[in-house]
Every structure is written in C-alpha cells, then in structure tokens.
C-alpha cells in the first residue's frame, strides 16, 4: 500500500502544474474558452510538447503511461486551471485506438486532433439506443455534445453496424460540424454525418467503448477533484479575508463547519477517484467508475453551491475566478453519465 505518486508521475505533475499555471491565468483562460475556436491552439501545441498526451497511452501503443493514475495526474492538473484544451477527446480516442491496435503517433504528438462521438440527443449516456449507422462504408446520423468537436481533425464515432456497436473514423472535413462554447467554457460540437465516408476502426466495439468511457470518467472525476480543491482553497482564503460585522467571516462557526464539510467531501472524492483509477482496465472498472462519477456529482454540487453561497455575491460574477470553477464543477456532472445514471448502475449491479 502506497499513496505516494511514483517518481515519474510526480515529475509529470510538477511539470504540468508549473507550466499550466502560467499558460492559463484566468483572464486568458476565459478569453480563449469562450471565443472561437474555444481553446488556445498555440497553447495546445505547448501542452502536447510537454508530453501530456503521451502520458495517456501505454508504451505498447506508443505512449508513456496510460494507467488510471497517469490519467488522473494529467486531468487533475487540467482541472486546477480549468484548461479548455480538447484533451478528453484525445484520451478517449487513444483508448479506442489502443483497443484497435491502430497507430496513434499523430494523436499523441498532438499533430492531429481527435474527438469522439458517442452520445446522441435521445441517447445521451446509454449507447444501446443510438441511431447513427453505417452502410456501405457511409455513415449517417448526428452526434451531440461532441467535446472538442469544434476543433477536431478526425472523429471516432460509435455507430450501429447491423446489430452491434462499432467505431468508425470520419474526417472532420466530411462532416457538418457546428461548434459552440459551453456554459463552463471550452468547446463542443453538433456533428452531422450524411453518407460521409467512414473507415472501420473497431468492430464489436462495446467493450472498448466501455473502457474509453471509464477512462473518460476517471479523467473527468480527476479534473473535478483538481477544480474542487482550488475552489475550496479560494473559499477558505476568502473567509479569512472578507470582513463583515467587524470581523473576518471565517470566524463565523456556521461557515467554518460548512467549509469543513466541503473538505470532507473533497477528501472522499479524491479517495473514490484513486480507487476508480486503480481499477481502470480491470474487471471492476465500470463499477468503480460509476461510484466515482456518482460521488463526484454529489460532492461537486455541494462544493460549488456552498462556495458560491459562502462567498455571497462576488462568486456570482464573471470577474471572480471562483465562479468559473463552480460552473465547471457543476457541469462535469452531466458529462458521460450523471449522478443518478451512475447511481442506478451501481444499484443494479449489486
């Protein structure tokens, strides 16, 4: 039993924290996160040069990591600066390509940007009900909320291929892509395919998609832990500085206890993410991913809402960095299955 990071991961964490902190000062972050292309192409280049994407894939696939803990280290740092770069798509695409044994050098180097199209309007989480389909090498359908889709060169798309799920590769230039900013910054896209040329990457892709989603969940949960940690520290700092009634509001016991409860839930969140990361790729991966996503959903709502309430006004403003952390933490819940969706998965598996 050892809860210290390995030396390699510690170095990765240090390097990311040092670099990202400079690159995504909140004003710059907000500028790029809400204006086309909803991320910073120059800084994407610098991020990939740091090797951040290589950390997401195993050595056998040309990467230098790929374990749950690697993903966790990277995304926690992304979460600490609300990084709007399309790393989630790269991670999930990489998992799929690793499963397919496909070459992903262009992905990991950051040269080609991948996004993954899974959910649809009427099947946001549950892929059994998607309708995008392929026949004769042509794909038709619409993928909703494709994260990073506004900036992608290539899409990996889940489609019905006869009865079973398969993954196809489609060039962005062959799709109709409508990009937009999200409430919490960064971009996504509605992607419509009309008889677009599609290359089969992986047939019978059910298990690979589940693995990619689980990896995505570990990533999102780690990102949330990073963001919650920063927001909590911001809140505690504010409590110590802000004076009302002649004293710092952090001397009011109700606010103290509520800040402690936030801390408790953040520690619990960190714990369940460690567990989900440890189990990623194993037979229990989906179960623990669901547990993590559910707990993060609940803790996130508590942390974000309490942070806003305890700031009292200032956190309602765009100018205050905390508001953007709160938004990201809340909005993460709906990505790749929300609190209730994952709770029922845990309940039904019991």
């Amino acid at each position, binding site marked *: 039993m050892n809860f210290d990071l390995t030396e390699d991961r510690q170095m990765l964490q240090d390097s990311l924290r040092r670099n990202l902190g400079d690159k995504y000062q909140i004003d710059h972050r907000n500028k790029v996160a809400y204006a086309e292309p909803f991320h910073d192409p120059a800084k994407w280049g610098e991020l990939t040069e740091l090797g951040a994407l290589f950390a997401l894939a195993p050595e056998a696939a040309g990467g230098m990591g790929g374990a749950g803990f690697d993903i966790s280290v990277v995304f926690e740092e992304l979460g600490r600066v609300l990084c709007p770069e399309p790393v989630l798509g790269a991670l999930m695409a990489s998992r799929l390509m690793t499963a397919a044994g496909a070459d992903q050098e262009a992905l990991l180097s950051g040269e080609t940007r991948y996004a993954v199209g899974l959910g649809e309007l*009427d099947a946001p989480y*549950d892929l059994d009900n998607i309708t995008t389909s392929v026949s004769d090498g042509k794909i038709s359908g619409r993928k909703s*909320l494709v994260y990073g889709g506004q900036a992608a060169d290539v899409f990996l798309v889940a489609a019905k291929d006869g009865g079973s799920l398969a993954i196809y590769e489609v060039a962005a230039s062959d799709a109709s892509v409508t990009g937009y900013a999200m409430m919490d910054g960064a971009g996504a896209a*509605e992607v419509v395919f009309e008889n677009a040329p599609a290359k089969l990457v992986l047939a019978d892709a059910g298990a690979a998609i589940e693995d990619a989603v689980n990896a995505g969940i570990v990533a999102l949960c780690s990102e949330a832990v990073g963001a919650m940690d920063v927001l909590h520290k911001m809140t505690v700092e504010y409590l110590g500085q802000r004076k009302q009634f002649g004293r710092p509001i952090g001397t009011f016991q109700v606010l103290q206890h509520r800040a402690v409860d936030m801390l408790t839930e953040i520690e619990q969140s960190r714990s369940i993410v460690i567990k989900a990361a440890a189990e990623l790729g194993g037979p229990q991966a989906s179960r623990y991913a669901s547990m993590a996503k559910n707990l993060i959903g609940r803790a996130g709502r508590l942390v974000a809402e309490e942070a806003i309430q305890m700031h009292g006004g200032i956190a*309602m403003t765009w100018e205050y960095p905390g508001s953007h952390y709160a938004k990201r933490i809340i909005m993460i819940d709906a990505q790749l299955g929300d609190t209730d969706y994952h709770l029922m998965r845990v309940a039904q598996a019991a």
Partner: protein
Amino acid sequence: MDLNFTPEEEAFRQEVRDFFAENLPEDIRDAVKNGGELGKEIIERYHAILNKKGWLATTWPAEFGGPGWGPVERHIFDEEAAFAYAPRIVPFGLGMLGPVLQKFGSKEQQDHYLPRILDGTDWWCQGYSEPGAGSDLASLKTRAVRDGDEWVINGQKTWTTLGQHADWIFCLCRTDADVKQQEGISFILIDMSTPGVEVRPIKLIEGGHEVNEVFFTDVRVPYGNLVGEENKGWTIAKYLLTHERTGIAGVGFSMLELEETRELAKKVMRNGKPLSEDPLFAARVAQAEIDLEAMKLTNLRMLFTAQKNGAPGPETSILKIKGTVINQEFKDLRRRALGPNAAPFPGSLDGSNLDVAPAGNANNAARYFNNRKTSIFGGSNEIQRNILTKTMLGL
C-alpha cells in the same frame, strides 16, 4: 380552518387571469418563457400595460394611485402573473421607493415622484450594498456631506440591479461618521444624470448583465433630495426589509417550474424511455413538489397572519429561506433533466437548426447559475437564520 378563497377572491383571480390572457403580448410571454434577459423595452411596455389597468403598483393604497389591494389580492395577482409568464414587476420604484415615500416622504416628494414612477417617467434603482457592506449593510461607507443646500456624495455602490436603465437611484449614505453605525445613515435620492455618477456593468456568472457598480465622485444633489430625517435612513432600510414579505417565497414561480420540469421530463429520453419514467428523477420531482405544496400553505398561513395583524412577522424569513431553496431545486432539476444537452452557452446554437434542448429550455443551465443569487441577496439565507434565531427561538 378554511383553506378556500372567498367567492369574491375567486372572482378576482378569474379577472386577473382573463386580464393576462387578453393583454399580455405573446412576444413578452415567450421572452419570459425562454428565461433569457428581458430588455428595457419589454419591461417598460409591460409596466405600461399594467398601469393602464391600474394594477402596476400592487402594494400601493388607492390614494396614491395603487389598486388598494390587501395581502390576499396581491398573492392572487402574483400567482396569476407567474402562471401567465408575465415578467416580474421591477420593484425598485414600485415596491420599494414608492412605499418609502408614502411613509417617510414629504407631500412634495410624494406629489412629484409617485406619478412619475407609475407612468414610467423615472426608472429607479437601488443604492444599498457596497463592496465592503453586503450582509453587514450598516457598515456602508458612501459619504454624503452637506454643503449649503446641497449634498456632496462620494463613494461606491454595487449589485445595483438594472442600474444600466435607471434615471434615478435611491441611496443609503453615511451622513455622520461619528456615531454608532446605524445612526449616521441617510436616505437620499440621486439623479443618475448628475455629473460624477458613473455606472459600470458587472457581468454575472452565467454571462448576463443585470447588475452594476455605481460610482459617485463629488456628486452634488439638492439637500431636499433627503427622504425622512437626516441620519434616520436605517429606519427606512429596516422598514423595507420587512415590508411586503409575503410574496418572497415566489410560490407561483416555483409552481410554474414544476410544470415545466414535468413537461420537459416527458420530452427528454434516458435509457430509451422518457425521463419522466425514471424512478430516481420522478422521486426528485415528487419530493420537490411536496415541499412546494407545503410551502404554498406555509405562505398562505403567513399571509393570513399578516392580514390579521396588519403586518407580516419575523416568521416570514422562513418563506425566504425555504422558498429560495425550493426554487433553486427546480432550477437544478430542469438543468439536470437535460443531461449533457444543458451545456451549450446560451444562444450559441441560435439559428443553427441544431438545438439540443426542447423549446424554452436552452437557458436552463444559465437560469440555474443565475438563480443561485436568490439565497444571497435581499438578506442572505444565513442572515435570515440569524434573524429567526433571535426572533423565533429567542437565543
């Protein structure tokens, strides 16, 4: 014990309902339904429609041009307005300054300002909070110094709602710095076009422009713009804090949210079925509905007490706390119902024909975030709990 409204009250409800059905323009209704910001033009047009009917100043007695309603009529009007998707009446002139002038103002002030509030000549905003004086309002620092027959005002106000549209602002100013905080405050009216007044927008968490900072630099207004006595402004502030609190629970708005949530849950799919058939979501909605049903009665009970005693009591803080929590829960449910499709930034898919949310729901996430303010402003829920501790628990 009788939970029914009288036949007269029911007839009045019908009259209000009919009025809105006949007089509320469809574009205004849709704008409210979509939950975005309402522009100045819409609000002024809506106010004018109500004013024409004599229903704009819902809390004013007839002598000042109000309808002379009691708490029950006001409650019925508020509910029906909510059900009709009417905008909220902007309260600063009508709900706040009006009653203040009626109680504390001079005859001249009443004669001059009240008609202009009614006919929309003057748009008022509120200058209470300051960067260093939020929950602790009495610590405000904006100074008004008398210089002959003028006030010279310096300082800064914040959270000034819709100040960008305003012609006038009523301000709490410090006029005596040498006495106990509450005893050196005065209530002063300031024309926003006076040199030295500057309004700067505050962008809110969800991207909207609803509140502002207002800066005063050597702003000179006539001494006669003082309302009530010098250094007695805190009395006015306290009066407003407990005035007309029975509508504070926003029950009508929450009832609408419940309906909207239910409709939405029938339209969005989860696991191959409408979300309305998901037991956990159905349970969340049912629980919020039950809390709301109870709140409807709690509201009526306090309304009844207010009617009997002539004024609402401190227990109305319960309406503020629980009313906002219930409304926030519905806002959360509507955002939650959309799942990932709540994510697009408001307006970002406009005109693309690729909406991801059913009509009227594209702003659900923005509404959720914006609505967090309701447990903070107007005396945060923590302040309300402090009040209840003192008044209802005696601790």
